[in-house]
């Protein structure tokens, strides 16, 4: 059975090839059926794997790829509980988003190519999580980056979208260089980049090995790019230029969690390096809080969600950094449910309002879009961490571990979590409650068609009950999720020796505090946006300093542009026009001129006068004899 799992990525690849080659020759509905059908088959196979994988690890060899001495990699897939969870998320949530896209992209003239790209993305994402070596993971890793590029700039007539796409690709490439150098070091250190070899050899090393620290930090640079962590996060908010299903699939549910997957997969390596763990945790928590402060004041519905994603990814890295590997993966899963749902809900709103994305021009959509509203509400409760919704369990598990790793992580985590509740309910209240603030005559808000709302409903169910697979023992559950992943992280946990589960009472108390904090934030948001009916001020109004900084995203884009982009262009011009044309080529031309000049001088000697030649000869011989005698 598990052998067939190797086929999982190839159905979407076939979909891509068919749709890509035939493109406009296929009617839209057939193209959509092919794209969704391919994914459904993959989902079925993934489900089969998931059912049979518990406690097992299986490798499926397909073909050799690159073999140069010890630097070799093959197309070999690895199936284990960790990859099976990602398979389920990618094919399951991916399928729902494909179905949703049938409605969302129905009138787009590039409908078929959109589905082709989506299928290609799923292919690369599956390769990423199925790879059995770092080098093959890199194939998926860069492949999803390509699809992200293609889909962010999907509407390529608009320059701003193309700029966003280019920015995403280049920023990811900065991270990828770190990843690639990390892989090269793995090859040099372990003679291979296959997980099996690397992890087995690493298991014999002592904690604190410098080489392991270097490797893990380089790999983490890659993760920072792909998973949008400080300082490589600015591409993700811009990536919202792509069609909304793309934001849901790539920039929320799947691709951006690749960094989490990579660090979790390398758990044993990170466990060996306390320094890297600390770096991961610090970058995670700082990003989580920093991005949340930006989300507080944004007015574009997708921008709020984008910064929220950056922030939630920060939480996941916090979890990894404090050694809560399975909790982080758990949060990847619940986040995939509720964040995909939030984006698709936002898409439904945008679709219903003919393209409006500014929450200041929404309001009162609750009545006009009842299904979107209910599902959005459930997702908001889930992300805010209200029990018993899914986000509660996963986020609390991370915060619980953060508490044992260091009080400060937990405090910052709770503060971030308060902000999360606030900005999410601010968004919910402004969009769906109160009265409609847009132009009633121009826009006729309406609920979306069934093909869009059914995926919303399924995701809402998952967001609501999805957390029950990982109810902690302190709440009378059996932590099934952790147990399922235990074999994968076993060695890593053994290296860390900090996973004590003794303080059951305080664990419950901690949960109480975080839930109370979230509830207080919700109350503030309700008081401000429902009771007092506050609406964010319009563009151009002067804001108080902190609010202004948040609203302008701390001017990070402007700083990057002034410090990196513009100077590089200047340097480029200088090197090209001055150094290359004037200096280096100047030397070359000067040597040519010198030759000319010398030959000009020599010409005077070539007089054709025999007397002169004779004289020169005699003088020459005299000189030679003279010097010889000396």
């Amino acid at each position, binding site marked *: 059975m598990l052998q067939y799992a190797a086929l999982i990525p190839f159905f979407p690849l076939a979909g891509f090839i068919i749709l890509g080659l035939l493109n406009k020759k296929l009617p839209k509905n057939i193209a959509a059926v092919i794209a969704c059908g391919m994914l459904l088959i993959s989902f079925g196979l993934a489900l089969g794997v998931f059912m049979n994988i518990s406690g097992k690890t299986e490798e499926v060899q397909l073909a050799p790829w690159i*073999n140069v001495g010890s*630097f070799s990699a093959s197309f070999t897939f690895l199936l284990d509980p960790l990859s099976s969870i990602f398979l389920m998320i990618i094919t399951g949530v991916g399928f729902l988003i494909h179905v949703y896209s049938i409605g969302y992209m129905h009138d787009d003239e590039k409908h078929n190519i959109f589905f082709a790209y989506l299928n290609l993305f799923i292919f690369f994402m599956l390769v990423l999580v199925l790879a059995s070596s770092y080098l093959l993971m890199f*194939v998926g890793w860069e*492949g999803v980056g390509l699809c992200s590029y293609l889909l962010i700039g999907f509407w390529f007539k608009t320059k701003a979208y*193309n700029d966003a796409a280019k920015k995403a690709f*280049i920023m990811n490439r900065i991270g990828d260089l770190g990843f690639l150098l990390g892989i090269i070091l793995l090859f040099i250190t372990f003679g291979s980049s296959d997980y099996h070899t690397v992890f087995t050899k690493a298991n014999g090393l002592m904690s604190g090995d410098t080489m392991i620290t270097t490797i893990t930090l380089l790999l983490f640079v890659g993760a920072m790019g792909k998973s949008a962590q400080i300082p490589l996060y600015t591409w993700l908010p811009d990536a919202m230029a792509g069609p909304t299903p793309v934001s849901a699939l790539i920039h929320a549910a799947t691709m951006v969690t690749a960094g989490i997957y990579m660090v979790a997969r390398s758990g044993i390596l990170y466990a060996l390096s306390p320094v890297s763990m600390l770096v991961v945790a610090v970058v995670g928590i700082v990003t989580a809080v920093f991005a949340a402060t930006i989300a507080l004041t944004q007015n574009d519905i997708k921008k709020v969600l984008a910064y929220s994603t950056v922030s939630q990814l920060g939480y996941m890295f916090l979890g990894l950094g404090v050694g809560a590997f399975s909790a982080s993966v758990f949060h990847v899963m619940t986040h995939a449910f509720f964040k995909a749902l939030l984006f698709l809900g936002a898409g439904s709103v945008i679709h219903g309002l003919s393209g409006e994305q500014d929450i200041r021009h929404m309001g009162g959509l609750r009545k006009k879009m009842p299904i979107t509203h209910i599902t959005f509400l459930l997702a908001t409760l889930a992300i805010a961490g209200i029990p018993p919704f899914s986000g509660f369990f996963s986020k609390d598990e991370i915060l619980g571990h953060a508490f044992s790793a260091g009080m400060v992580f937990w405090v910052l985590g709770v503060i971030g979590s308060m902000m999360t509740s606030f900005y999410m309910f601010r968004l919910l209240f402004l969009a769906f409650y109160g009265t409609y603030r847009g132009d009633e005559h121009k826009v006729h808000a309406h609920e979306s068609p069934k093909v869009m709302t059914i995926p919303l409903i399924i995701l809402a169910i998952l967001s609501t009950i999805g957390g029950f697979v990982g109810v902690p023992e302190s709440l009378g559950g059996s932590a099934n999720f952790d147990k399922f992943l235990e074999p994968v992280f076993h060695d890593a946990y053994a290296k860390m020796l900090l996973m004590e589960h003794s303080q059951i009472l305080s664990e419950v108390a901690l949960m109480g505090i975080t839930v109370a904090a979230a509830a207080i934030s919700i109350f503030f948001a309700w008081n401000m946006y429902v009771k007092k009916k506050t609406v964010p001020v319009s563009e151009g109004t002067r804001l108080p300093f902190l609010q202004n900084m948040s609203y302008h995203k701390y001017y990070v884009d402007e700083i990057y542009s002034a410090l990196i982009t513009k100077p590089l262009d200047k340097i480029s011009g200088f090197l090209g026009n001055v150094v290359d044309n004037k200096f280096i080529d100047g030397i*070359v031309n000067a040597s040519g001129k010198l030759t000319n000049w010398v030959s000009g001088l020599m010409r005077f000697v070539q007089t054709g006068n025999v007397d002169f030649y004779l004289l020169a000869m005699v003088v020459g011989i005299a000189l030679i004899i003279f010097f010889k005698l000396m």
Partner: protein
Amino acid sequence: MPIIALLIFTFGTAVIGLFIPIRYGNRFAFLSSLIVFAYSLYLFITFPITAEYQYVLDCAWIPSLGIHFKVGIDGISILLVMLTTFLTPLIIFSIRKNEPRPRAFYSLLLFMEMALIGVFVSMDGFLFYIFWEIALIPIYFICLLWGGKDRVRITLKFFIYTMTGSLFMLVGLIYLYLHTPVQHSFDMQALYAAGRSLSAHAQCILFWFFFLAFGIKMPIFPLHTWQPDTYTDAPTQGTMMLSGIMLKMGIYGVIRWMIPMLPLGLAQNANYVLWLSVAGVVYAGIIAFTQRDMKRLIAYSSISHVGLIAAGIFAFNQQGLQGGIIQMLSHGVNVVGLFFIVDIIQSRTGTRDIGSLGGIRLKAPFLATVFAIIMLGAVALPLTDGFPGEFLLISGVFKFQNIAGAVAGLTIIIGAVYMLRTYQRSMLNEPSLETDKFTDLTWVEKSVLIPIVIMVILIGIYPNLFLKVSEPAILKLLSGV
């Protein structure tokens, strides 16, 4: 015999091509280059995986001077012969119908193919030098007769530049020749032995003589200033020949002649030449950022890519050398595709300035897709042809010296910057006045570009097809036998 057949056939067709009626000239040249390709493909498929030279032919040429006509093919040269014979038909086929003096053009290209094959199969130092110089003659005339406005000045500069380098090589070769046992000989093995018997000091000096010749040809920073002008001003087919195949002569020369002859010279100077090459990767890549003329931009990108290949080879380990070999193929394929696309754009719009282009994808989706795939190869996306090479090269340089590897690795960022910028400003955004009436590819253009796209993907997915062929020869080279 097979090698002689290749050389004589290409030379013969080059001569006959001059007398064929004009309207058949195109078909004749294309077909004969296709036959050459088919034959070398046969040689490639039947090529045994060993380090030994195959099809060796050795006959005395000028016996009194120990000069032999000695040719043979090993795992390294077969790949370069393949590259030459694969690209030449595409380059010939890409010539537009309205080109003046077509027969001369075709014949010069065929003649050049002969000389290039000769360079890659020579096993005698003198013969190598002869082919090396002969290859310059056709490209000189191609640039001079079919080039752009400033062709006379630029071609002269190119000619003097590379002749200067060649003369240093000649001096080096003669010096080594005189150090061979009495009854001197230009035989490759004899020159190897002569070089290795020299003191480290002498090897160092000779190393720089050869470095000038090969470094100018590639070109390596800072010997590159002839290149952007020449690439820009030469006719597209000339640029393709120069960048796709001819610059590989320089790299090949380093692998085949310089390193085996002067191992101590390399050992002493590897650090300098490797850093020069790495500097070129970054330097030329950054200059490419702000180039507006697409041809010039790709010229600079070529300096950057070749710098990485050179760095990997100077690192002199298995990853670097193997990466260098496969990257020579990928670079040849990609750069010919890119220059042809520029030619297509120029022939439609009359400009190569990316500032006045845009929106071509809307008008010509086929061209845009092909461009995208070749661009991905150029930025070394995994599963395209650029990746195996760049990965191995960066690994090789990294093994030699990790900081140099990290700096060379910047190419994956820098390359993405200038390539995506070029793609966006030509293919994406709103169409401009110039591109408003852009038409998609003709069948001729498609038949040139589709084989290139296939190679981009084939090398990316199955690099072992080529890596395995060169492996024994590389291992032999590394073992210093």
